[in-house]
């Protein structure tokens, strides 16, 4: 969930709760105040009535108390004054109305009376409604306006954060230019940006150094390797070598070949990473494939591998021709190398993908890492485990997607252009 949505939802829940609580308290108090007012009025009337009855010795005229219903009942029974609410039928309004009733004893001219004052609470309800509704409405609108205001304000406030985030998202250690972080007056964001800038600059720098180191190291290794190789080649020609010496030299020779292969592969990897290959061109995948199959033709025959080509479409792909060459050489080489005798290779070419499947001994133990450098399934010394890493790098650099799966006893490599 987005930060803004989250804070907005919290804000909405909180303000709704707050306004509800305030509303309830307000409503309750309002009702209380009006209620007390009514009760006070009742007692006031009582005082007026008693005073009138004491002074004049008569019961007052009904007309004096319009709106309130006052009843005088002659009585001899002693009773206590009491106050209560009751529903009384109002013939004028034709409905039951909540009424507050005060009953008290009074005396006029020696006659005891039971006086009942009925005060309709109908108006008090009206009053409460008239006050509470506008209040609730204004509270609701206040909430909405505040919500919109905070939304806009928060959006504005977090803007630098989001641009920083966007920049970070597109951060690539391989790129040369440092992040373009927005200027902001907010202290926290300024600190964040400067820290991020420091960090990413360091990452880029480290990456560059590492890359340069690999490149230089591999490069510098070429010459000593050449020297060792040439000296050994001269040594082999000697007639005086013993059997043991020859064997040792040949072992060295084999290791040296591996070392120089490894070195060349590392150089190639760093070259691809550095983007040191030229521009992309439109290349016919089918033609490269034909070319490479030609190169491996004798080896394929030698291992009695049957090749099935299924060309559904012959696509042209934008790629550096050299890299495409290396890519398909690697993939075909792998398909042959990890194949079984009398095995098969199936190549399916589609509009936007190529699928190279080959029979093999067994599924890989660790298919997730097979595109990693130095990931080797076998301990055989003839490969450094860089072939697929190079293929992956080429695919990355060319915007292809390469995947591996194993099904129906086939190792399947799919490239989506």
């Amino acid at each position, binding site marked *: 969930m987005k930060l803004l949505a989250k804070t907005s939802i919290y804000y909405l829940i909180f303000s709704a709760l707050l306004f509800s609580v305030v509303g309830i308290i307000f409503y309750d108090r309002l009702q209380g105040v009006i209620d007390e007012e009514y009760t006070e009025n009742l007692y006031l009337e009582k005082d007026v009535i008693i005073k009138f009855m004491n002074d004049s010795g008569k019961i007052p005229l009904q007309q004096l108390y319009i709106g309130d219903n006052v009843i005088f009942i002659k009585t001899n029974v002693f009773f206590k004054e009491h106050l209560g609410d009751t529903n009384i039928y109002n013939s004028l309004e034709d409905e039951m109305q909540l009424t507050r009733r005060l009953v008290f004893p009074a005396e006029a001219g020696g006659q005891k009376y039971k006086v009942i004052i009925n005060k309709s609470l109908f108006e008090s309800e009206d009053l409460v409604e008239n006050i509470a509704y506008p209040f609730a409405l204004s509270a609701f609108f206040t909430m909405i306006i505040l919500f919109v205001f905070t939304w806009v304000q928060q959006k504005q406030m977090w803007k630098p954060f989001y641009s920083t985030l966007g920049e970070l998202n597109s951060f690539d250690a391989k790129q040369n230019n440092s992040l373009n972080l927005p200027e902001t007056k907010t202290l926290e964001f300024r600190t964040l940006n400067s820290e991020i800038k420091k960090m990413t600059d360091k990452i880029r720098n480290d990456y560059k150094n590492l890359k340069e180191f690999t490149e230089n190291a591999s490069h510098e290794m070429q010459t000593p390797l050449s020297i060792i190789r*040439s000296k050994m*080649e001269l040594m082999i020609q000697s007639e005086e070598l013993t*059997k043991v010496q*020859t064997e040792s030299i040949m072992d060295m020779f084999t290791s040296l070949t591996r070392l120089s292969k490894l070195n060349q592969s590392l150089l190639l990897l760093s070259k691809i990473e550095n983007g040191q290959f030229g521009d992309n061109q439109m290349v016919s995948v089918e033609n490269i494939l034909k070319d490479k199959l030609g190169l*491996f033709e004798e080896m394929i025959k*030698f291992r009695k591998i049957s090749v099935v080509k299924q060309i559904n479409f012959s696509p042209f792909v934008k790629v550096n021709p050299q890299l495409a060459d*290396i890519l398909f050489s690697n993939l075909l*080489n792998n398909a042959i190398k990890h194949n079984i005798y009398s095995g098969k290779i199936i190549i399916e070419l589609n509009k936007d993908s190529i699928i190279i499947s080959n029979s093999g001994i067994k599924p890989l133990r660790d298919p997730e890492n097979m595109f990693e450098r130095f990931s080797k399934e076998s301990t055989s010394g003839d490969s450094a485990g860089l072939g697929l890493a190079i293929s992956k790098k080429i695919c990355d650099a060319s915007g292809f997607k390469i995947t591996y799966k194993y099904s129906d006893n086939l190792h399947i490599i799919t490239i989506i252009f």
Partner: protein
Amino acid sequence: MKILLVEDEASLGDSILTFLKKEGYLCEWVKDFNSAFDKAIDYDYDCALIDISLPGGSGLNIVEALKKNHPKTGIIIISARNSIDDKITGLDIGADDYLTKPFHLSELNSRIKSVLRRRHFEGSSEIILGSLKLIPEEKEFFVNDEPVTLTKKEYDLLLFFVSNKNRVLTKESIAEHLWGDMADMADSFDFIYSHIKNLRKKITDSGGDDCIKSVYGSGYKFSTK
């Protein structure tokens, strides 16, 4: 045959020089740009082996100087930089071949031979070794003047042997000659073994001498009696 070697790395130059002398070439070795440039202008060579990165300048300039002054000299660039751009530039300005370090001396030898053949016999060269005859440009092979059909790889193999006759060729150098960068293919040694077997059979079946011997532990050797 006179060869100019331009190589700043002493040990490597020394190996190449020893090798070439054994092959019977007359060889001159210079280690820096200026002396190489002077030689390139003043003397005539059959073939020049030029390292690109030299103290004092780029080997490419020497290639240009050679081309200008002695256009008949065959030129092979030897470089630590395995970059296609360098390769293309080198070949564009007139080099005949481009070899990336680290290379096998036998490979260098075979390239020199090929350049010399193209340069000196205008492609109409024949190689005759006892009962065997090769016409490299036509990719034809005769045993006792009878044509023998070879596959492309068998032919490459034979030519590589012939270029390096009387020398031990390791399986590695043969694999690299046949497949270049793809030499690490599985079974490439078995493949070489089977091809050499076929090649020997084809030669002996046509009545030729069995000239390819396997040398214990190290590789193969082509020698004529």
